[in-house]
């Protein structure tokens, strides 16, 4: 992972380093507040959801060194669960007691904030299960295990009745946030998404720079040494995995409300590939890289919608180009040239 954290890029004093991050954050926040004046809100909201998704993914790859090839699982199921809660509400859980019974929790359709929270919690639960299995293997196997488990849950999404198979959960009501902010209004929805994004971004920043985050980076650099220092690295990795899954779930749930749709596309493996692409383009292990990468990829796809399957060819070419020539990503290179931390 030598390319992810380049010590030369962080030679400035710690105060200056965090300063550059604060300045970059303020620029980003201001730009996003005024952005609706210049771009379509739906486009911006899509980019923000994917940016959050990529930040969540980056928490694992960039700061723990774990490549999850199945993050669509948390994004997609967060979207499904939130969409279901917002549209239907009632949840039935099968349980075994001599024979199968259904435990029906008779919920009404929930307001958006609770739907997103529900989606996030469900993604966290999935993250706990998948993470506990996946961290039993390291390196390349970790990627294959996450990919395989995500594919399994994809087949489950195809078969489960509440996901409505190929149709997906359509016409999800956006509802009224906290009972009085009508999210059917595009501007209200945009600023809700923006607040969710910035809030999660700051939380991730806080996690990365906490003592917990320092241990994660130690695991990334040299896991055996972290173990020899007495850290139970498996637990740290699991917590990081669950956190990453939760943020991915928030991103998916928010996306479901924005587009009023949760579909198979969100859980399928190309989505996992897309979030890797965004993070790689922006810069693995950089704070702002995933955001830049997400905006880059979403913009690109916006322009490429007319060329059909060639989108995949372009994506593949970007993958190849980034791995061969631009392993630090856009933001990583920028940080290296400016000798600051971003």
């Amino acid at each position, binding site marked *: *992972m*030598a*390319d992810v954290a380049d010590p030369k890029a962080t030679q400035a004093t710690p105060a200056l380093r965090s300063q550059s991050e604060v300045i970059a954050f303020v620029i980003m926040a201001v730009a996003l507040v005024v952005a609706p004046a210049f771009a379509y809100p739906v486009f911006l909201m899509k980019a923000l959801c994917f940016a959050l998704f990529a930040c969540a993914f980056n928490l694992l*790859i960039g700061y723990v060194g774990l*490549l999850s*090839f199945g993050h669509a699982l948390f994004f997609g199921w967060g979207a499904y669960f939130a969409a279901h809660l917002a549209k239907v509400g009632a949840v039935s859980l099968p349980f075994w007691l001599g024979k199968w019974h259904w435990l029906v929790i008779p919920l009404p359709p929930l307001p958006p904030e609770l739907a997103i929270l529900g989606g996030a919690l469900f993604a966290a639960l999935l993250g706990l299960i998948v993470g506990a*299995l*996946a961290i*039993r*293997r*390291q*390196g*390349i*196997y970790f*990627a*294959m*295990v996450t*990919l*395989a*488990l995500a*594919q*399994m849950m994809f*087949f*489950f999404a195809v*078969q489960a009745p509440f996901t409505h198979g190929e149709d997906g959960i359509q016409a999800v009501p956006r509802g009224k946030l906290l009972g009085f902010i009508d999210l059917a209004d595009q501007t209200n929805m945009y600023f809700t998404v923006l607040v969710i994004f910035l809030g999660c971004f700051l939380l991730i920043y806080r996690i990365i720079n906490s003592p917990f985050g320092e241990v994660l980076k130690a695991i990334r650099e040299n896991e055996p040494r972290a173990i020899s220092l007495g850290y139970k690295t498996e637990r740290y990795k699991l917590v990081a995995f669950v956190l990453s899954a939760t943020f991915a779930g928030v991103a998916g749930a928010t996306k479901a409300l924005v587009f009023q749709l949760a579909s198979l596309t969100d859980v399928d*493996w190309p989505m996992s*590939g897309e979030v*890797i692409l965004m993070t*790689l383009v922006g810069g693995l292990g950089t704070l702002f890289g995933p955001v830049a990468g997400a905006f880059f990829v979403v913009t690109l796809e916006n322009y490429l919608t007319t060329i*059909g*399957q*060639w*989108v*995949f*060819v372009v*994506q*593949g*070419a*970007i*993958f*190849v180009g*980034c*791995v*061969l020539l631009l*392993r630090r990503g856009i933001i990583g290179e920028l940080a290296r040239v400016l000798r600051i931390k971003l």
Partner: protein
Amino acid sequence: MFEIFGISSQALFGQLLIGLINGSFYALLSLGLAVIFGMLNIINFTHGAQYMLGAFAAFFLLQYAGLGYWWAIVVAPLAVGATGIVIERLFLQWLYKLDHLYGLLLTFGLALMIEGTFRNFFGSSGLPYAVPPELQGGQNLGFMFLPNYRAWVVVFSIAVCLSTWFVIERTKLGAYLRAATENPTLVRAFGINVPRMITLTYGFGVALAALAGVMAAPIYNVSPQMGANLIIVVFAVVVIGGMGSIMGAILTGFGLGVIEGLTKVFFPEASNTVIFIVMAIVLLIRPAGLFGRGV
């Protein structure tokens, strides 16, 4: 005709045969992945696309050159293997000193490019490829009907797997390969051209995938996404077996194919997911994989 557990023998053995066929492809593909990973330290995500290329090569040979199945089974692996050698020289050779994940990402990108290009020209629907005339028809074994072509696929892939195992584990060339896997620098010091061996190994692994593709062409249709979902299942097979052992990869491939076939008989809803469930169980019980050495 007789019944076992209330299932007719026809259905049971029919699914077992399909399981063995799928198992042949799992075994050939995971074998290729294991050989490539051993030498290059790269998980070849392009493997599924190269399997698809093998099937398309057979289709093209028939369509445009009039060369049938028996030509295809020789020419297609050689041709696709040659593209593999080009890929290794152009892209992969720069990645050996980097973290494993970059190899995975690069080959994933290549797979997207290849499969996207083919989907563009051939859509998503499959193209038919006829069973060669010599292998049409089948045998009635009393308890089931055995199509000749399917019997051929199972027998031939077992033969290919075992010869690969023999070459790697029992010959001088294989000894060089295994030594270069353990310590490439030392093997180079003995005057063996390790970089060329690496290149040829990748070409061989790719050729195995293409061979599987040619064999699959008459069974499934030739379609651009025939490899995309298969490769994920093969990854699960590789996780279950562990990549340390050639024989392990072969046995796991066939075993899981059979398990999948049986699941189709007894619990059809889970037939898509059973391999992933087995993977989860194996991870809980034996995290290193059934035949794995370490993690």
